[in-house]
């Protein structure tokens, strides 16, 4: 972890998961987004979709009880919930392109003020790792990004414009970082919720582009 200030990785994931609504179909990317599945959402009932065609997967299987032919997009041996179903890859991405995914949660290197984001290629790299990210980014109804607020070198990840190759343009709905909850507005980042222990000035100093603060700024909702 590059920065110990603010929220833990699980708290960043929890805050994003609190956005999930009854009946939603949700796709979780690898890394911190996977941790959304640990969040206790009480009675909220939704369905996890995985790129490999598993619709309605449940928690990771207990050790010794894994089905080695049942994995989520991260390759973890998960379980299936009652009502789950399986489709092949072309149909699975038909679900994505067809606009049937209510929210996709992904990690990223950078997010810009106009909702572009970059998560498939590092600077100077030949090739990269796209996976299903471009399909999900272009077609999900909501694109939620979870990332550390700054890089290891203390550079902002919320930037005026991405200087890394983008995954999709103008699609990001909401961003959860260890410093707070942000909304790209086109002309800046709106700080909606602030992490305990952080100040607006600290966040402004570590955010690229324009930071605006919600009139009713709240503290980030935490578990319990």
């Amino acid at each position, binding site marked *: 972890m590059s920065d110990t200030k603010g929220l833990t990785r699980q708290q960043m994931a929890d805050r994003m998961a609190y956005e999930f609504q009854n009946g939603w179909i949700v796709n979780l990317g690898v890394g911190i987004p996977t941790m959304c599945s640990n969040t206790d959402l009480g009675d909220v009932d939704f369905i996890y979709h995985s790129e490999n065609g598993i619709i309605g997967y449940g928690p990771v299987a207990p050790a010794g009880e894994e089905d*080695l032919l049942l994995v989520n997009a991260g390759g973890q041996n998960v379980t299936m919930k009652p009502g789950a179903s*399986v489709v092949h*890859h*072309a149909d699975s991405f038909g679900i994505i392109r067809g606009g049937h995914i209510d929210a996709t949660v992904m990690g990223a290197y950078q997010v810009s003020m106009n909702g572009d984001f970059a998560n498939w290629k590092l600077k100077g*790299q030949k090739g990269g790792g*796209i*996976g299903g990210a471009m399909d999900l980014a272009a077609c999900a109804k909501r694109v939620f990004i979870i990332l550390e607020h700054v890089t290891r070198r203390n550079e902002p990840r919320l930037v005026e414009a991405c200087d890394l190759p983008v995954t999709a*343009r*103008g699609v990001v709905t909401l961003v959860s970082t260890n410093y707070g909850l942000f909304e790209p507005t086109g002309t800046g980042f709106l700080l909606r919720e602030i992490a305990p222990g952080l100040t607006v000035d600290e966040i402004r100093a570590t955010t690229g582009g324009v930071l605006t603060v919600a009139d009713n700024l709240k503290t980030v909702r935490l578990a319990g």
Partner: protein
Amino acid sequence: MALKSKQVDSFRDAVAGIEDGSTIGFGGFAMPGVPFNLIKALLEQGAKRLTLVGNTTGGAASPRMPDMGMLVENGQVAKVICAFTAATRPTDVLPFTKYYESGECDAELVPQGTLAERLRAAGAGIPAFYTPTAVGTELAEGRETRVINGREYLLEYALPLDYAFVRAHRSDTFGNLQFHRAQRNFNPVMATAARTTIVEVDEPILSLGSIDPDQVHCSGIYVHRLVQVPAEPEGLWPTRRQERRR
């Protein structure tokens, strides 16, 4: 008049005759559905200047099982077409990367859903299609786009295969296939896109009529050769993934 069995006796027979320069598609996503035994047989068969199509060149997970990257390392591959030429986590290094960076092997990076749809299109007689995926990105630079109902789409072409390597759970002698859970993934789509589909099967191959027609996941009309995977250690099976250290 019974349908002729497509079962062959060995993995060597299953990959016999694959020509240099062929385009071969591989099912599989993470461990499930990867045709490990056919890949191993192709390493021994030795066909060269191949174009390989699959989700990833592999090699990021431990323990390493046969993957497309091993064929690259074995000097058999001219080009790969896949959704990853680098790992999802920047800290993981794919064995393929150094062959790509040195120019020994070419690569075409394709978004996963576009890859699946290009294969589906090839099998379904659709020469090209428009998709919103990758519009506005580096992948779309210099390529044909079109605005339809106010939204911009990128033109993508069908991707036909000479051969598909598939792993299924169950098959009858005609090649009507069933998959178990996440084993399905790209496998049925690869089968439809190929002129010759070769399938390795987990369970002993069943007599005709043993699989209820309503429960067939991939019709035997797409299948040409079948071979049963032997028990370990002779046969290769998915293993428990070891957690990577962070």
